[in-house]
C-alpha cells in the first residue's frame, strides 16, 4: 500500500543526478529519514554521486540535554512513577540511566503514547509523570491529553522542542555550508510548510518536505538539486499526500492552547530562543516542573556536561558523521552506549551501527 520503491524510477533519478555532476551538502532532521537513507544504502549511493546528506538535530532523545535527563531521573528516584518512551531508558545520566534507577527500585514504565500514561494514572493512586519528548509530530498529542481533563495525579515533564528555530540556528551558526534542507514529513503534517518559508527568504535555503519511502527521499533530493541548478530557494512539497501548506490546524490550535514557546538548550547547541514548549499556567496542575519544583531545584542549580569523548553534539549539528567518532562500534555500541545518539533508534550512531553490515543489499 502506497509503497514507493519503484526500482526503475529510482535508477532514473540516480542517473539524472549523476549527470548533473553535483557537489552538494544537504541536511535532514528526522530519524525516520536517516533510517530510510541508511537501510536502503541511499546515503552511500548519494555520496558516490556527490551528494552528502547529514542528519542534523533530528532525534528527540538525542537533542534532550543532560539537565533534562537529570530532571526525570530525580523524579524517578524520589519514588514517583515515571512513564517514558522506550528510547529514554538507556540514556546515561551523571549517575546512571533510568534503567539503572529501575534496577534500584524506581517505578519506571515504558509507554507507546501519552494515553498509556494517562491510563496508568487513572488505574493507580500514585502520581505519574510522563516525560514528553519529541517535535511537533508528538507534542500536539501530549497537548490533547493535557486538555482532555486527565486525573490530577498525572503530569508532564515537557521536554518538547520545535523544529523551525533549530533550523534557523543551524543556518545562523554557519558551521556547515548547506545547499538545501530536506524537511521532516511528519512534523510537517502538523505545522504545514509555511513555517519553513522564512528560511528560504532569509538564508536563501532550498527546501523540500519529503516522505519516508526511498523514492520520496530520492525525489526530494532531485527536487533540491533542481532548485540549486536553477538558482531557486523555495519550499517544495514532495509529501503532498499527507502534508498541506497550513498543516493540521486543529492540532496546532490544541498545541498553542496548552503550550507556550520558551528558550531552551539543545544537546550540542547553545540556548535556542523560542524552541521549547512550556506548559501554560492554566494547566500547571499537570506541569511536573511546577508540581515538583522543590525536588527539581537542586537539579536546576547544577550544570551537567556531556559524556567525555562522546561526539553527539557535533553529530547533531551535522559537522561529523557517526563513523568519524573514534568510539563508534569500539567503545560505544547499542549494548553499551556512551551517548544518546547510540541509545536512540533514531540516533545516527544507532542507525549506522544496525544497518552498516547489510548496506550492500538494496
Amino acid at each position, binding site marked *: *500500500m*502506497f509503497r*514507493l520503491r*519503484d526500482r526503475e*524510477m529510482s535508477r*532514473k*533519478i540516480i542517473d*539524472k543526478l549523476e*549527470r*548533473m555532476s553535483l557537489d552538494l551538502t544537504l541536511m535532514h532532521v*528526522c*530519524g*525516520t529519514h536517516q533510517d530510510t537513507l541508511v537501510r536502503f544504502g541511499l546515503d552511500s549511493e548519494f555520496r558516490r554521486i556527490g551528494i552528502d546528506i547529514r542528519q542534523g538535530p533530528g*532525534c*528527540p*532523545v538525542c537533542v534532550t540535554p543532560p539537565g533534562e535527563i537529570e530532571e526525570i531521573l530525580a523524579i524517578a528516584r524520589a519514588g514517583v512513577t515515571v512513564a517514558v*518512551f522506550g*528510547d529514554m531508558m538507556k540514556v546515561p545520566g551523571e549517575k546512571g540511566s533510568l534503567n539503572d534507577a529501575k534496577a534500584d527500585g524506581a517505578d519506571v514504565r515504558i509507554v*507507546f*503514547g*501519552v*494515553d*498509556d500514561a494517562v491510563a496508568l494514572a487513572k488505574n493507580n493512586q500514585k502520581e505519574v509523570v510522563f516525560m514528553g*519528548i*519529541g*517535535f511537533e*509530530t*508528538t507534542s*500536539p*498529542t501530549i497537548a*490533547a491529553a493535557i486538555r*482532555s481533563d486527565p486525573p490530577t495525579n498525572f503530569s508532564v515533564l515537557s521536554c518538547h522542542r520545535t523544529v523551525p528555530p533549530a533550523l534557523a540556528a543551524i543556518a545562523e551558526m554557519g558551521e556547515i555550508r548547506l545547499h538545501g534542507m530536506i524537511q*521532516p514529513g*511528519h*512534523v510537517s*503534517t*502538523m505545522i504545514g510548510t509555511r513555517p519553513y518559508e522564512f528560511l528560504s527568504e532569509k538564508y536563501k535555503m532550498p527546501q523540500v518536505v519529503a516522505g519516508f519511502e526511498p*523514492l520520496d527521499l530520492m*525525489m526530494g533530493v*532531485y527536487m533540491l538539486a*533542481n532548485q540549486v541548478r536553477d538558482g531557486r530557494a523555495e519550499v517544495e512539497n*514532495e509529501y*503532498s*499526500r*499527507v*502534508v498541506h501548506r497550513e498543516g*493540521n490546524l*486543529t*492540532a496546532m490550535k*490544541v498545541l498553542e492552547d496548552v503550550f507556550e514557546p520558551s528558550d531552551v538548550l539543545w544537546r550540542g547547541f547553545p540556548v535556542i530562543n523560542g524552541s521549547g514548549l512550556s506548559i501554560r499556567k492554566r494547566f500547571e496542575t499537570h506541569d511536573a516542573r511546577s508540581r515538583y519544583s522543590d525536588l527539581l531545584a537542586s537539579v536546576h542549580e547544577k550544570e551537567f556536561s556531556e559524556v567525555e569523548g562522546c561526539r553527539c553534539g557535533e553529530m547533531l549539528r551535522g559537522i561529523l558523521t557517526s563513523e568519524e567518532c573514534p568510539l563508534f562500534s569500539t567503545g560505544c555500541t547499542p549494548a553499551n552506549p556512551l551517548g544518546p545518539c547510540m541509545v*536512540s533508534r*533514531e540516533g545516527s550512531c544507532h542507525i549506522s551501527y544496525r544497518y552498516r553490515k547489510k548496506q550492500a543489499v538494496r
Partner: protein
Amino acid sequence: MCLAVPAEVKSIDGMMATVDFGGVSRTANISLVDAKIGDYVIVHAGYAIQLLDKEEAEKTLELFREMLEQENAGA
C-alpha cells in the same frame, strides 16, 4: 519517534477509532483529525495526526514520472 504509519479507519467510538494497519487492528485517538470510516489516517504514538489522500498519492507517482520524462533532454 516521528515514525507514523498509515491505517484505515474501521469504526469510530467518540474520540477513539479502531484502525487497521494492513491486517493488524489497533485503537487510535482521532481527536486531532476529522476522520470518517473508510478514511486512511497517519497514526503516530496512538494518535491519528493527519488524513492520507489516496488520490494525491497516485498523483504524486504520476507527477514523478512526468518530471523524469520531461527533463530527459535537459538534465
